């Protein structure tokens, strides 16, 4: 591993896989604490972090299990560092407990889930997109969460940086969700100098006063974070808490807490929402696709256009919260929605929720551990076009 990539001083083009790009993006974003547990197909992230972090006074620790990894990053985040962990399906299941703590106590953290086939141990070395719903609803109770689905190696690098910015700014766990195929795909990435990157850090509480309340938030709904040692001596808990940080069961305070917690992403929608639209202006067949599958969809749409079919693509980059408004703005003219996914049909349920009555929605699903090909999508686009 003694490659020039180890030097972080100058921007340059490197040919690396998605997992390495994720690690390098995290370092660039200011991540200085990584705790993890080995699991295929995400282990390269931990390996790269174990190499890079010690060079920059960061901390890498391999914990005893996935649960402990998640706990350790939250402890480090509460101590003031930017933190990350990475895993895959079975490990992601184990993260859910402390992920809920991060959402409820509003502890910034980035969690990478390199998806493999499930359920259970499933297909450790094969790609899938089966954790879309788990990423949204894996931990119990109503909670805010951001899930980002990059589709290429350069995008993993960029979106990892963005994941940190969002998590730090909004005090919400951010999940980077991509699959084994992009995780192990090699592409060219331009590594950036830290000066070139726009970094956002959490707001630290600075003014100590008798009235200070660690979970009181202003109009932006984001409370300032308290750094231990700064003299505030506050309480942090996973129990439902009042603005003073202590547990409460008062229905008014519980409701206010829940409303603020669940409302903060909507309030900052301009930061959170991200998507890409291709050839949607006059599209009659719209392919809605994310992650690795969107690459096949992009190709299929181009080929369809070459044959005179009015096809387009809508790609959520931030998949949760789902970019419903931008999708609704497009589907007015659309007759058919095609939703290819490497699962039995998950995000299609969201599309169903937002489709106008005149729109038909169809899934194109693969659950055999293989990626969806452009030809598969093109064939379905042609079928839909010929049925008109």
């Amino acid at each position, binding site marked *: 591993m*003694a490659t020039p990539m*180890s030097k972080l001083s100058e921007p340059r083009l490197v040919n690396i896989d998605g997992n390495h790009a994720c690690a390098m993006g995290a370092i660039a974003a200011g991540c200085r*604490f990584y*705790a993890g547990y080995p699991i295929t197909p995400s282990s390269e992230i931990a390996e790269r972090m174990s190499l890079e972090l*010690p*060079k920059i*006074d960061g*901390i890498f*620790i391999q*914990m*005893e*299990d996935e*649960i*402990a*990894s*998640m*706990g*350790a*990053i*939250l*402890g*480090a*985040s*509460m*101590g*003031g*560092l930017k*933190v990350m962990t990475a895993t895959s399906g079975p490990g992601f299941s184990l993260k859910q*407990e*402390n992920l809920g*703590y991060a959402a409820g106590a509003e502890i910034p953290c980035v969690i990478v889930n390199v998806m493999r086939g499930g359920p259970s141990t499933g297909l450790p070395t094969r790609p899938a997109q089966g954790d879309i719903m788990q990423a949204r609803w894996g931990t119990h109770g109503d909670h805010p969460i951001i899930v980002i689905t990059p589709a290429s190696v350069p995008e993993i690098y960029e979106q990892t940086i963005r994941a940190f910015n969002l998590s730090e700014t909004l005090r919400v766990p951010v999940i980077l969700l991509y699959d084994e195929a992009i995780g192990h795909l090699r592409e060219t990435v331009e590594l950036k100098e830290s000066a070139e990157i726009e970094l956002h850090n959490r707001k630290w509480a600075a003014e100590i006063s008798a009235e200070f309340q660690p979970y009181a938030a202003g109009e932006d709904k984001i409370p300032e974070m308290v750094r*231990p*040692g*700064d*003299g*505030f*001596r*506050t*309480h*942090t*808990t*996973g*129990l439902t808490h009042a603005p003073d940080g*202590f*547990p409460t069961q008062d229905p008014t305070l519980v409701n206010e807490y829940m409303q603020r917690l669940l409302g903060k992403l909507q309030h900052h929608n301009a930061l959170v929402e991200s998507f890409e639209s291709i050839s949607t202006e006059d599209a009659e067949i719209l392919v809605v696709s994310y992650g690795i599958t969107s690459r096949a969809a992009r190709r299929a749409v181009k080929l369809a256009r070459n044959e005179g079919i009015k096809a387009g693509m809508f790609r959520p980059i931030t998949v949760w919260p789902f970019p419903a408004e931008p999708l609704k703005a497009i589907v007015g003219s659309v007759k058919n929605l095609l939703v290819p996914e490497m699962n039995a049909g998950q995000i299609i349920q969201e599309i169903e929720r937002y489709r106008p009555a005149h729109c038909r929605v169809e899934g194109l699903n693969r659950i055999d551990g293989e990626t969806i090909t452009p030809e598969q999508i093109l064939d379905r686009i042609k079928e839909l076009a010929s049925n008109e």
Partner: protein
Amino acid sequence: MSDVDSQFNIRDYLREHLFPHFLCPGCGHGIALRALLWAIDELKIPKDKLAFVSGIGCSGRLGAYIDANTFHVTHGRPLAYATGLKLARPDLEVIVITGDGDCLAIGGNHLIHACRRNLNITCMMLNNEVYGMTGGQVSPTTSNDRFTTTTPNGNYEPTFDACALAQAAGAGFVGREITLQTPALKNVLKEGLVHSGFSFVEVMSDCTEVFGRKNELGDSAEMVLTQKSSVRPDVYDNQVDQPFRPNFLKTGVMARNNRPEYAAAYRQHILTMREGKNNG
């Protein structure tokens, strides 16, 4: 030296606006907390530098009453959170407050690896032999034949010796004390806090309302006196009085070693890596 004679005033360390506290009458947890704060007071650790991490259960609720940086985390995971916090912030005195269920059952894996790593954290485990907060279910440390709500005919599972476990897993410091011996408990905790490495202190607490009532063990005074007669302080280690003592549950300092502290080892690892790179 007795508590009464010292300059220590527990109220200096408590968030009294949260009173009345939630502990049941007769519960030993408050005495354990008193001993811990007393040890901290004698060591003159500034409150701003104190970070308490606790889990779920009666033990987990203690942290909220301490006027310091307090983190009440998930069930069984305080040692995992504390590991991250201590590595991120070596300037903080990180103390874990946990219970027999939190630490030995759901958190058992974290305990053995915290002992193995030997990061400079002090862990106070309150052992009251029962899951008190959930209504009195059997725990890994429930004594043989004791009645709980999930052992209606008496406990038939073997009882965990937490100190033996911690010692075997490599903890830098291991101690045990009963709440009745509060000054001695304070001293063991103090030694644990001073020790550079992972310090595990088991406090034999008593759950009067749930466990005591169910097993007709009498009031709190009776329970702690029974406890006292059943332990064997380490000062008797070399004396031949075994025939006269009904039980051999050791108290005092159980183990101490000078294995490398984790954070120090990590810093050394970083330096070695950098030197390797510079030379290469």
